[in-house]
C-alpha cells in the first residue's frame, strides 16, 4: 500500500508540474504583452515597463515559471513586498495575493460539491438499485425514460426554472446564498439546498443508469446464483454480493466527478450567483487576470489528480481482487 501510494504520488506530482508548466506557458508566453492586461485601457509604455519589472515579467518565461513554482513552496519577494508561501502571485485586477482569494472562495465550492455529490450519489445509485431490483416492471421503464430526460437537462435551464418556481413563484425558499456552516448550519443548509438539487439532477441519470446495468450484470454472475442456491436470502445476496461487485466502477466515476467539482462547479455557481472558485475563474477571465486564473487552474488540477489516487486506493478496499502494485 505504501509503495503504491508513493508511486502514485510521484506520478501525480509529475502530471501536476507538467500541467502547471503548460498552463503557465500558455498564459504568460503566448500573449504578446501580459502586462497590457494588468494595465487597463489607458496604458503608457512606461507603465507597462514598470509592471513588467514589478511582476518579473521581463525575464524569460522558464525563469518566470521557476520563480512561480518556487514561490508556491517557499514564498517570494516582489518589489512591492514579501508574498508568504504558498505564493501564487498577485492578482492583476485587485493587486491582492491570489492565494488569499482562493482560500476565501474555496469553502463555497466545497459546500456545493460535497452536498451536491452526496445527493447525486445516494439518489442516483438508489434509483439504479430500485430499477435493477424491479427489472422489466413499470418502475424500471419509468426510471429509464426519466433518466433519458434527466440526461438532457442543463443546469442553466433547470436552475433558472427552479429559482422562478421555488423562490420568486411560490416563495418557499430564499435566494441561494452561502453562509459558513460554522456560523449557522441551518442557514448553510437552506441556502445551499437549491444548488445541490439542481447540480445533482444532471448527474443522477448517469449514476442510476450505470448502477442498474452493473447490478444486472452482477446478478447474473455465478457466485450470486450459488449464494441463492445455497439458500441465502434475496436481500442479503442483492446487497452483500451483487451491490459490492457493482460498487467499484461507481466509486471510480464518483471520485472523478467529485474531483472535477472541487475545481469549481462553474455553471452552478454562475446560475445561483455563488462566489466560489468557478465564479472566480470566470471573473478573472473577463478581467484577463492571469495570475488568479493560473491559481484556480492549479487548484482544480490538483483536486483531480488527488481524486484519482483516492479512487484507486478505495478501489482496492472495495474489490479484494484488485492488487495494488
Amino acid at each position, binding site marked *: 500500500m505504501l509503495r503504491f501510494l508513493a508511486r502514485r504520488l510521484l506520478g501525480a506530482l509529475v502530471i501536476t508540474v507538467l500541467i502547471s508548466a503548460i498552463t503557465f506557458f500558455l498564459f504568460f508566453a*503566448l500573449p504578446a504583452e501580459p502586462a497590457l492586461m494588468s494595465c487597463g485601457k489607458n496604458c503608457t509604455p512606461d507603465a507597462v515597463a514598470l509592471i513588467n519589472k514589478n511582476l518579473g515579467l521581463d525575464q524569460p518565461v522558464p525563469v518566470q515559471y521557476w520563480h512561480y513554482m518556487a514561490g508556491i513552496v517557499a514564498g517570494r519577494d516582489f518589489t512591492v513586498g514579501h508574498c508568504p508561501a504558498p505564493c501564487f502571485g498577485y492578482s492583476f485586477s485587485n493587486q491582492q495575493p491570489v492565494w488569499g482569494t482562493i482560500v476565501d472562495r474555496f469553502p463555497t465550492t466545497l459546500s456545493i460539491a460535497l452536498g451536491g455529490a452526496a445527493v447525486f450519489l445516494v439518489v442516483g445509485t438508489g434509483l439504479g438499485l430500485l430499477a435493477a431490483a424491479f427489472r422489466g416492471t413499470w418502475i424500471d421503464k419509468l426510471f429509464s425514460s426519466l433518466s433519458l*430526460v434527466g440526461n*438532457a437537462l442543463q443546469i*442553466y435551464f433547470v436552475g*433558472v426554472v427552479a429559482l422562478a418556481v421555488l423562490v*420568486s413563484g411560490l416563495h418557499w425558499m430564499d435566494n441561494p446564498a452561502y453562509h459558513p456552516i460554522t456560523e449557522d448550519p441551518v442557514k448553510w443548509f437552506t441556502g445551499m439546498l437549491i444548488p445541490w438539487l439542481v447540480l445533482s439532477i444532471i448527474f443522477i441519470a448517469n449514476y442510476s443508469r450505470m448502477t442498474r446495468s452493473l447490478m444486472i450484470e452482477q446478478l447474473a454472475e455465478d457466485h450470486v446464483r450459488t449464494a441463492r442456491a445455497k439458500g441465502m436470502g434475496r436481500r442479503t445476496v442483492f446487497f452483500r454480493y451483487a451491490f459490492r461487485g457493482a460498487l467499484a466502477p461507481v466509486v471510480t466515476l464518483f471520485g472523478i466527478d467529485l474531483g472535477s467539482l472541487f475545481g*469549481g462547479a*462553474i455553471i452552478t455557481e454562475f*446560475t445561483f450567483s455563488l462566489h466560489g472558485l468557478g465564479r472566480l475563474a470566470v471573473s478573472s477571465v473577463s478581467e484577463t487576470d492571469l495570475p488568479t*486564473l493560473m491559481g484556480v487552474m492549479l487548484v482544480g488540477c490538483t483536486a483531480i489528480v488527488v481524486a484519482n489516487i483516492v479512487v484507486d486506493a478505495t478501489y482496492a478496499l472495495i474489490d479484494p481482487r484488485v492488487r495494488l502494485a
Partner: protein
Amino acid sequence: MTTVEQAALTGRSPGELTWRRFRRDRAGVASAVVVAFFFLVALAAPLISAVYGKDPTTTYGLDEPGLLNTYGYPVAPNGGISGRFWFGIEPTLGRDVLTQLVHGIRTSLLIATAATVLCVLTGVAIGVTAGYAGGRTDYLLGRFIDLLLAFPSQLSFIAFTPVVYALFVTPGKETPTYLRVVTLILVLWVLGWMGLARLLRGQVLSLREREFVEAAKVTGASPWRIITRELLPNLWTPILVQATLMLPSMVTIEAGLSFIGVGILEPTPDWGRMFANGAHYYESDITYIFFPGVAMIVFVVAFNLLGDSVRDAFDPRTTR
C-alpha cells in the same frame, strides 16, 4: 426454384442490413427526423427569417411603442406571444425570440459540428496509430492522452479561450465574431478527442491480432492498406456511436460557455446566451427562457436516442 424464393435469397451487404434494422426501429427513425429538423432549421435560418419577415438583431420593442411596458417587459401576456411574434419578444431590447433561437441554433450547431468532426478525425488518427504501431509510439501517445485528461476540462475551456483570443488580437481591441467562433472550436477540439482515441486504441489492439489482419500482412499489404481496408471498416460502429454522443455534449458545453459569458457575445445570436439573458429576466418573464430550454432538451434527447438506435442497428447483439 421459383422466382419468389430467388427474390427472398438475394444477398445483402452488411450496410444494407444495418439500414434495414435502423428503419425498423421506430424510436430511432423518429429521433433521426427530429435531429434532421434541427440541422435543417440551422441551415435554413436566413430563409426562415426572410419568410417570417423578421431578423434576430432588430429591436422591435424599442422601435415601436406599445410592445414593451415602461419596465421593459412585453405588454402582451406570455412574453409577448402574438400572431406577429410567435415565440414572443425579448424583454428590454424587444428582439424577436423565434429568429433569435433559430439563428442561435445555427451558431451553436456550426461550432459543435465543426468541433465534433475535428475531434473524431483526431481521435481516429491518434487512436488507430497508437493501437496499430504499439510499442514506444503507443506508450508516448498514451501518456499524452493521460496528461490532457488530467486537465480540469470545464475550467480549461474557460481559462484557455482568452489565451487564444490574445493570440490573435492584442488586448483591449475587439475580437471579431469569426475569431470567437474559431477559438471556441479550437478549445473544444483540443480537449475533446481523447476519449474516442482511447476507445479506438483498445479496439485496434484486439483487432490487429485477428486472422484477417495476419492474412493481409502475409500477402504483403502495406500498413496504410491494412488500416484503411481491414481495420477502419471494423471501427465504424464505435466511431459513429461516439460521434452521435459527442455532438450534443459539444452543443451543451458551447452553450455553457456562452452562458457564463466567455463564448459568443452580443449581438451575434447564440443558443447558450439566450439562457444567460433568460436568467436576468426570469422573475418577470419566464417565457423567454422556456423556448431555448425546451428546444435544447428535445435536441439532446433526440440525439441520445439516435445514438442508441445507431448502435443497435450496427450491432444487433447489444441489449439495452
